[in-house]
């Protein structure tokens, strides 16, 4: 795809991100004005998506975005109430558009209808919102303003006035006169303040008093109480405030009619109205979007900073013999400062894994509804961070695998009941750091892979040879081969677009691996391992065989040093428990020491109480610190080493704790075998 479109794709990505975030806020109880602001934002977002797609020549996408825009329009006009099921449908719609954009980015042709799977739900919503003949209400006439002013109100503003009055909300007018030079900025300040008190319905031009110069406006706002003292007015700006419409004047027959209203939330206490609402504040976080080439330039600067810090470290090492402490101290400060810069630049590239999880949840809900399979979805490890670029490439394959798990993996409730399983299927998605990799597990408790069928299909396709024994591992792996499918026809949900071979290709292109396993009637596990290229790691620093090593603190259970000399193969007593000890040198194939007085107790990362624990003998405990981990290139991969970090005293090798535990156990077994 044309790289000049990078900016456009990035903008699509941002818009979808905003839409997902805004929809997520609608799932929680919010004050009416926050709901209204969110719906307005979603309306604008889909409007922009529609325009961008039209500009790029994607008419089907534009049409689908227009349909979503219409639904948000119905919501903002108060004709649709924000409910959980409505928000779920909208989430599914946004997800369908997002997947569509991912397809377009890959050069796929446009489907006829992006929202095909939601056709029924959207149709029902539109039917629900359609007013009955003669049933439309307009309470704008209750506003105490001249008719010629009211004529300026849009259809949307009419519906908002009506809905707000019927929900019992008073409507106030704030008249301001602003200076020519600064009116736009001042108007924004007033609008934001009134938006935080309640809902700003309209900003109308107003007559400038005869003795004044400037521009005057009437800001029509709905809020329980309006205190002029709380307005951000500069001297002379405020002309006055009025109660324009009192909900008490709404005919009793029209109140509580159940006409579309925003979600029901308690009316804010008067003293609370001046405090901006936390969730609306959260939405005001400015998102800075950078085109891809700028990010690349930024990353090049990151490399340059890294180089600078390396040179500083080298200089520091070379001048270590000098006795003048001042330049040393100065260099130390520079080195620390550069590490901070590196860390913050590095942080800019990272995003939390939960942003990936947030895309999965609505899709699973929608799949669950469409397939009639109740699913208990759980996530773990959302706080871990991954490079933005990797996460972006991971989304499509991930959604495909989850879709497969629900569509093909989980049985129907009746099938599950017949097997003695709970009717609700389980789908567990977890992320965990394992050594130099970030590992994702997608685990379901469904039927597992049908290995018999895979074998037959493999033989039919010529991917397997008859008469040979095919291990379960080989058969599982076969499903990752290009063109392999046991499905004769693609279902409505899966079997579209991305196949498992594409998933594998994409994961391998990221330097990762896919591993599949399953057990008949017990479930399946898809495991993805992705390498972490750079990260800041908190380490325990130790020395052994004259070299510095870092052990990630997450795996360190205890550090112990004493007078007793220990050797590899000894048992040491740690808090009343006897643990096997192996020297770090033996694990790494280095010459073994005569004896060591310090050891570090390591356990498997994230493992439960009964995990493997080994005491790792080291020559010296140096301390702890945060280090910038650089991964080793493939040709230099060494067993037990996760990567390295350039330090004042040379390279600190950061150990891969799980691999070291494995190497220690192997070494201990060899000792036993020798005896």
């Amino acid at each position: 795809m044309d790289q000049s479109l990078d900016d456009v794709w990035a903008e699509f990505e941002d818009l979808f991100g905003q839409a997902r975030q805004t929809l997520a806020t609608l799932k929680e109880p919010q004050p009416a004005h926050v709901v209204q602001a969110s719906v307005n934002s979603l309306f604008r977002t889909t409007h922009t998506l529609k325009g961008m797609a039209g500009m790029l020549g994607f008419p089907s996408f534009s049409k689908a975005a227009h349909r979503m825009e219409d639904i948000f329009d119905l919501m903002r006009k108060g004709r649709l109430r924000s409910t959980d099921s409505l928000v779920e449908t909208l989430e599914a719609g946004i997800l369908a558009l997002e997947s569509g954009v991912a397809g377009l980015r890959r050069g796929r042709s446009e489907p006829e209808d992006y929202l095909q799977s939601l056709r029924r739900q959207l149709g029902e919503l539109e039917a629900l919102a359609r007013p009955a003949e003669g049933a439309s209400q307009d309470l704008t006439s209750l506003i105490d303003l001249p008719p010629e002013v009211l004529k300026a109100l849009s259809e949307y503003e009419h519906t908002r006035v009506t809905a707000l009055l019927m929900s019992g909300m008073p409507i106030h007018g704030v008249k301001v006169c602003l200076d020519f030079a600064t009116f736009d900025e001042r108007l924004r300040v007033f609008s934001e303040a009134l938006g935080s008190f309640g809902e700003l319905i309209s900003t109308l031009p107003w007559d400038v008093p005869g003795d004044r110069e400037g521009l005057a406006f009437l800001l029509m706002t709905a809020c329980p109480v309006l205190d002029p003292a709380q307005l951000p007015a500069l001297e002379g700006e405020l002309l006055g405030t009025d109660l324009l419409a009192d909900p008490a004047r709404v005919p009793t027959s029209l109140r509580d009619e159940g006409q579309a209203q925003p979600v029901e939330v308690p009316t804010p206490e008067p003293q609370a109205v001046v405090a901006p609402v936390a969730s609306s504040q959260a939405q005001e976080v400015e998102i800075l979007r950078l085109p891809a080439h700028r990010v690349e330039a930024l990353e090049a600067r990151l490399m340059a900073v890294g180089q600078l810090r390396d040179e500083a470290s080298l200089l520091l090492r070379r001048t270590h013999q000098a006795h003048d402490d001042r330049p040393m101290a100065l260099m130390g400060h520079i080195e620390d400062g550069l590490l901070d810069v590196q860390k913050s630049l590095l942080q800019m590239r990272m995003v939390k894994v939960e942003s990936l999880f947030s895309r999965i949840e609505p899709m699973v809900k929608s799949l669950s509804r469409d397939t009639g399979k109740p699913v208990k979805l759980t996530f773990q490890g959302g706080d871990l961070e991954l490079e933005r670029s990797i996460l972006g490439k991971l989304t499509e394959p991930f959604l495909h695998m989850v879709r497969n798990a629900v569509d093909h993996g989980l049985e129907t409730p009746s099938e599950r009941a017949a097997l003695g399983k709970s009717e609700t299927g389980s789908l567990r998605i977890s992320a965990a750091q394992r050594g130099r990799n970030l590992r994702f597990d997608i685990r379901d408790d469904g039927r597992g892979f049908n290995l018999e069928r895979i074998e037959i299909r493999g033989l039919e396709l010529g991917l397997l040879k008859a008469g040979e024994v095919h291990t379960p591992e080989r058969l599982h792996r076969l499903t990752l081969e290009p063109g392999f499918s046991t499905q004769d026809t693609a279902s409505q949900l899966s079997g579209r677009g991305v196949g498992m071979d594409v998933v594998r290709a994409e994961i391998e292109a990221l330097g990762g691996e896919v591993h599949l396993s399953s057990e008949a009637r017990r479930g399946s596990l898809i495991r993805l391992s992705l390498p972490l290229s750079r990260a800041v790691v908190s380490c325990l620093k130790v020395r052994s065989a004259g070299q510095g090593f870092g052990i990630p603190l997450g795996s360190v259970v205890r550090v112990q040093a004493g007078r007793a000399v220990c050797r590899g193969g000894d048992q040491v007593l740690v808090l009343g428990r006897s643990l096997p000890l192996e020297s770090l040198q033996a694990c790494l194939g280095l010459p073994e020491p005569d004896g060591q007085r310090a050891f570090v107790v390591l356990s498997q990362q994230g493992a439960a109480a009964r995990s493997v624990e080994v005491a790792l003998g080291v020559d010296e405990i140096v301390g702890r610190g945060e280090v910038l981990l650089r991964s080793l290139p493939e040709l230099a991969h060494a067993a037990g080493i996760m990567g390295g970090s350039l330090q004042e005293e040379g390279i600190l090798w950061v150990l891969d704790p799980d691999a070291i535990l494995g190497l220690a156990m192997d070494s201990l077994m060899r000792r036993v075998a020798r005896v």
Partner: protein
Amino acid sequence: MSEGGSWLHVRAAGMDLVLSTLDLREVVAMVPISPLPGRPPGIQGVVVYQGEFLPVLAWEDLPGCPLSKVPPMAMAVLRPRLAIPLERMIGMIDLSTGAHQEADENDLTVTWTGGRVRMGALDLRVLDPDRLIALLRRFRGER
């Protein structure tokens, strides 16, 4: 191995070698190599190059390479991100006038060279980065 382009004549591991400049990122002065604990065969350690770790070839692990006592003075950084220690850089050379020979089956260096070129009294081995990388990967696999 890259075809065409110009060739750099170097001395490394006690042998005369030629490297295609098309396979070369640059030649840099030798810097101290950080030995890699539990290093894979064929790699003696790493140096930091452009902010990243760069593996450095261990000549003595390659078939047909005698252990040279001459300390390296420079490193050729190959495009596939591998540093090759050089004892000496001799200069650029025009291979078109030389007689190209396929590698002798008995020559152990055949696993990492792309034949030999005889130019007068000079017998030059042509370093083939693709074969060299494949050999290093094979070492890892056999480990």
